[in-house]
């Protein structure tokens, strides 16, 4: 691995987390597509990778563990309010080891004493529940786009990277390719994503969810420079006609910004498009991982590299 890609997550062992026990996956490249049947654990797998990459210290580790629950519970939290400690408590245990770091989180309760145990590469920190003061430490260039899509605020923050790279015109051109009725995309007043159509600026909410998802991915690719981007249900709301364009953008931009991408899908068309575009661009830094349950109902991973993806699609093998 060259210095430029030294930060890439290439393999992970999820010893304990949600549906995973002693689970191993390896062979990750720059752009990685994850697939598997419903409820097999695709999102949980991405969350496990996200927590591992995010855990550079105890605060960022707690932030990542909190974030994965917060993202999933977004709508409930909106109506019922939230208690950050309760959200953190919902993850009872997380243990993983990757080529980057070995981390562990668990909560113990003994003799009415509750403790939070954080460990990063054997550096152990034990915090009594009464003394726990959650300090969120966000890492701005590691992003997770969940299947509900990003809020206006998330998008506004990511758009800053577009401005920093002076790519506003390029983004508008890509948006126009996605929907030729849109002339331009902008953040009006710093927070309101708007599209110009027939000379009039309209809120992005007036357009389909696919457009927001598409713009979020492009902005995130610039935001996650030299870092990681996780996209759950990448095809969410996007018409299959646009899949090839989206992969072309992801392959090109991720290389440019040195961003490692993990995405999930269960769409056959999305997977075919991934293989087709990779072959067309001769993009070899890719992998495809399928999560499967074997006959003993144990969760396993099968990771294909570029050569095997190419071979399997040419032979019309069902690789989903």
């Amino acid at each position: 691995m060259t210095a430029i890609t030294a930060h890439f997550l290439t393999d992970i062992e999820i010893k304990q987390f949600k549906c995973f026990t002693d689970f191993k996956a390896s062979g990750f490249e720059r752009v990685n597509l994850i697939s598997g049947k419903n409820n097999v654990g695709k999102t949980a797998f991405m969350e496990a990778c996200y927590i591992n990459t995010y855990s550079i210290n105890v605060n960022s580790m707690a932030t990542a563990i909190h974030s994965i629950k917060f993202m999933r519970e977004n709508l409930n939290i909106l109506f019922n309010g939230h208690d950050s400690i309760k959200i953190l408590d919902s993850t009872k245990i997380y243990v993983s080891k990757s080529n980057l770091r070995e981390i562990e989180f668990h909560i113990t309760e003994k003799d009415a004493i509750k403790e939070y145990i954080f460990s990063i590469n054997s550096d152990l920190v034990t915090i009594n529940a009464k003394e726990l003061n959650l300090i969120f430490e966000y890492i701005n260039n590691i992003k997770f786009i969940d299947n509900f899509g990003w809020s206006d605020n998330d998008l506004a923050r990511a758009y800053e990277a577009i401005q920093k790279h002076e790519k506003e015109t390029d983004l508008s051109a890509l948006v126009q390719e996605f929907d030729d009725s849109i002339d331009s995309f902008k953040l009006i007043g710093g927070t309101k994503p708007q599209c110009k159509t027939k000379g009039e600026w309209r809120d992005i909410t007036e357009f389909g969810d696919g457009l927001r998802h598409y713009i979020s991915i492009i902005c995130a690719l610039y935001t996650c420079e030299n870092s990681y981007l996780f996209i759950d249900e990448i095809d969410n709301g996007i018409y299959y006609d646009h899949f090839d364009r989206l992969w072309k953008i992801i392959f090109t931009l991720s290389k440019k910004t040195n961003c490692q991408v993990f995405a999930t899908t269960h769409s056959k068309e999305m997977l075919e498009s991934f293989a087709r575009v990779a072959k067309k661009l001769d993009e070899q830094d890719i992998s495809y991982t399928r999560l499967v349950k074997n006959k003993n109902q144990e969760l396993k991973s099968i990771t294909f590299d570029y050569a095997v993806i190419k071979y399997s699609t040419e032979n019309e093998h069902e690789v989903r």
Partner: protein
Amino acid sequence: MTKIAILHEGVLDKKVIEGLIKHIELDEKLIVFYSMGVKSNFFDKKHPAYISLSLSVENDEINKVFFILDADNCDKNQGGMIKTQEKLQVMIKSLGFESISRFYITHDPRTKDKEGFIESLLLSTIPEEKMNCIDRFLECTGFDKKGGDKSTYERIYKNIAHPLSPYNFDHIHFNELKTQLTQLFAESK
């Protein structure tokens, strides 16, 4: 559903196997074909087909593997029934597939040393009088049976020898292959 992998050389092998499976009424939906392209790829452990197949076997998606490849002629590198068989068995062992594999090496059963390929097997299944004509024709035209182009055999078979039905699967020369396939499916259950 656990499936059976069939590794073959080219398009013709696949077509013949598909036809034969239908003919003996085995469930074609259980088959996943892995095209190896050329014979030498069968002996390359790093070939993408083997990587993909090993992963599927490991995860119980495939529980039986069938190899079908040409014997070729003895004077060729890796040619002839014995050399092909020996080399294939070494590969099967190195893949760890001994207990789940079967193989069939295509040849012309009329040859003393079991030489040949799928095309010559097909040609060996046509009625004897026609075959004698073709043998004489090949001899008269000076066609080099050993070094000759396999596609010429296929063309002769398709256009001259057997124009009415695609393959004569009831011929005795298909019996060994039929037995192998039937046993493979039975063991897969």
